[in-house]
């Protein structure tokens, strides 16, 4: 482009010298140049706009000013976990006036798509949300996207036993888990009482309770089937009550070796597929998260199967919570729980130290752990017993009791134990078998054939 301009500039004197062009020709050439110049300038300006903007941003900050970009999957910044996260960020900025925290928040699926775009483009924000499961982290860590963290920094942070396993690769931790998520049933106490049913402790009792509600014209369990992963959690919880402490090992073995010959698979999948229409609301396979939650909150279903992160719900009836009833009735088993979401620092971050400092600040026990529990939002992945106030809601007490009384937890579900390409296969297959679209045999054939 510069060459074109130079060529024209060189021609003009020559044109005048050989008498072929007079004043008019010169004017035309000049006009042509102006037209070309303005077009090229506007094109180039469009191309270079971002770098100019970046320079301005850097210049406006001052010498010790630091901007930490946070990429979050907590879109609601005014309630729940988003509010806790924002509160901590605001406090950090108040304590460190030179730090500005810029938050970009997207919902889970959009977040994962953009996370990959950022990783591919090498311009990942400084502090990011992660999922502490192989299906999300394996490739992210292998690609060198995340900054390794110093485990010694967190020795006094009270992370519960095993909670850092999901973010540990070759003895090195790459992030911190946010919560301990317990999967179970929120139930409408008023509705249970009105229909004369008790909290079920076995699978058969759960079916009996479901039948009572079906007979009363009420959907027993509200289930988010469209997103599919809650269905996988449901199966995971069932398996937990059978395999107990061996649940996680069974899952890992099955996924890694494509071996689903352990009878627990066939037993649980068959039972769930057979009873899905009794247990769940009509059309559960096409009901999304918000609608399934609303069905419960609006009193159109007696129970809602979901994680403990919904503990802050406040419908106009009393809500209780129980974990998956014992499937095989032997009185043993573990509850469905795992450490799902978390945070990590980007390897390519230009403000790595500051981002790690912010991450460490977030997880100082008096911050995330304390605030999330006191506000009844969720349970952190850290020991929160010192923050029990005695003023917990009945729902909070139900959940904490379920965790305290459990002999163990299942850990990650089978859909999250393979690589990212594997994840959709078990989720799709679970949704299809529970909604009667494929047979149980087809379900296992799908998983075995990959």
């Amino acid at each position, binding site marked *: 482009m510069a060459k074109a301009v130079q060529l024209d500039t060189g021609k003009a004197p020559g044109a005048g010298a050989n008498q072929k062009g007079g004043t008019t020709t010169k004017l035309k050439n000049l006009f*042509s140049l102006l037209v*070309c110049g303005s077009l090229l300038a506007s094109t180039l300006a469009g191309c270079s706009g971002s770098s100019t903007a970046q320079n301005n941003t850097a210049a406006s900050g001052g010498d010790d000013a630091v901007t930490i970009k946070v990429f979050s999957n907590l879109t609601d910044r005014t309630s729940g976990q988003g509010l806790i996260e924002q509160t901590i960020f605001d406090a950090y900025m108040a304590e460190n006036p030179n730090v500005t925290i810029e938050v970009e928040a997207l919902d889970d699926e959009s977040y994962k798509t953009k996370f*990959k775009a950022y990783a591919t483009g090498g311009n990942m924000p400084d502090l990011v949300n992660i999922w502490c499961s192989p299906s999300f982290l394996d490739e992210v860590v292998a690609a060198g996207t995340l900054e390794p963290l110093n485990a010694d920094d967190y020795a006094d942070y009270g992370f519960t036993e095993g909670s850092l396993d999901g973010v540990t690769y070759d003895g090195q931790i790459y992030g911190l888990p946010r919560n301990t998520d317990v999967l179970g049933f929120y139930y409408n106490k008023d509705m249970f009482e009105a229909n004369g049913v008790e909290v079920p402790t076995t699978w058969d009792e759960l079916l009996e309770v479901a039948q009572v509600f079906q007979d009363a014209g009420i959907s027993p369990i509200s289930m988010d089937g469209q997103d599919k992963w809650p269905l996988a959690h449901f199966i995971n919880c069932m398996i937990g009550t059978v395999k107990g402490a061996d649940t996680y090992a069974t899952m890992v073995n099955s996924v890694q070796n494509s071996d689903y010959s352990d009878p627990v698979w066939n037993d649980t999948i068959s039972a769930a597929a057979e009873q899905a229409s009794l247990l769940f609301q009509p059309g559960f396979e*096409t009901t*999304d998260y918000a609608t399934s939650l609303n069905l419960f909150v609006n009193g159109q279903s007696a129970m809602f199967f979901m994680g403990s992160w919904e503990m802050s719900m406040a419908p106009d009836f009393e809500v209780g919570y129980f974990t998956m009833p014992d499937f095989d009735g032997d009185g043993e088993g573990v509850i469905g729980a795992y450490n799902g979401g978390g945070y990590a620092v980007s390897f390519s971050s230009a403000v790595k130290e500051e981002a790690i400092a912010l991450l460490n600040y977030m997880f100082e026990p008096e911050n995330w752990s304390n605030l999330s529990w006191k506000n009844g939002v969720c349970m952190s992945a850290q020991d929160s017993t010192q923050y029990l106030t005695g003023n917990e809601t009945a729902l909070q007490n139900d959940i904490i009791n379920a965790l305290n009384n459990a002999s163990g937890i299942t850990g990650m579900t089978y859909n999250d134990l393979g690589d990212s390409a594997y994840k959709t296969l078990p989720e799709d297959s679970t*949704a*299809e078998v529970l*909604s*009667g679209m494929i047979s149980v045999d087809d379900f296992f054939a799908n998983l075995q054939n990959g």
Partner: protein
Amino acid sequence: MHKLYSNKLVIFSLVLPGLLTFLIAILAPIVLSVYYSLTDYSGLGAANFTGLANYAALVQDEVFWRALLNSVLLALGFICIQHPIAVLVAWKLDRLQGKAEGLLRCIYFLPNVISVAVIAYLWKFIYNPNFGLLQKVLELFGYEGSFNALGSGTAIWAVLVVLVWHGFGWGMLIYYTGIKNIDQVVYEAAALDGATSSQTFFRITLPMMKPVIKYNVTLAIISALKQMETVYLLTNGGPGNETQFMATYLYKQASGSYKYGYGNAISVVFIVICLAATVLMNKLFAERKEAV
């Protein structure tokens, strides 16, 4: 001014912005897409060259064929249901004249000014078997079960209804504009010759609308092939993969399953099908033009 436009440098300058946009925003992504379709790239890390493995897998992928079939079904739905009704409504609107014409035109176009997300959730609620309008209407007629229109077996038809309904306004408006551009003198001459209403429609309106019909039908086919947002929000391709369309399946493979290379193979086939459909439509209408 004429000489100015004959100046090659000026021509080059005028073409350059568009050319650059085409090269950077369209051609380069297509070339990259072809490259990545020949790899096992997951979106992160290294991309290993795998030749035509993704295309071989695509041929055997039942869901891909299902998505293609659904796209073809939708295109047929547009051409055979939406557009004939749109032409008739546009013609009738033109005959109405007066205030009713403007009012009805607005009403028919209304779904198009509503956000796709709102449309998707509106229909999702209508179809919901627990509290939806459809279920309540069926109950009024004595139906005692639960009818999940978005469930297995009926989902694709329920989705087609929404898409045909939602796109109706645009089609109708383009036909309406086409009809308005037909010289009234022709109609007056036909009336003087004693032509009936249907004769006017079939012998004057339709033949003179051919260019508009060609444009609209081509647009409908492309629109069916690249259908994404409404389906994604309405069913996300489910239940199972029953309502998977080309674009939603591409997105699912590339973003959900992290099979970026495979997703690109779908997108390359997608481009080829779109181009073939466009060429076919041009040829079809061109031949008919010659025949006339």
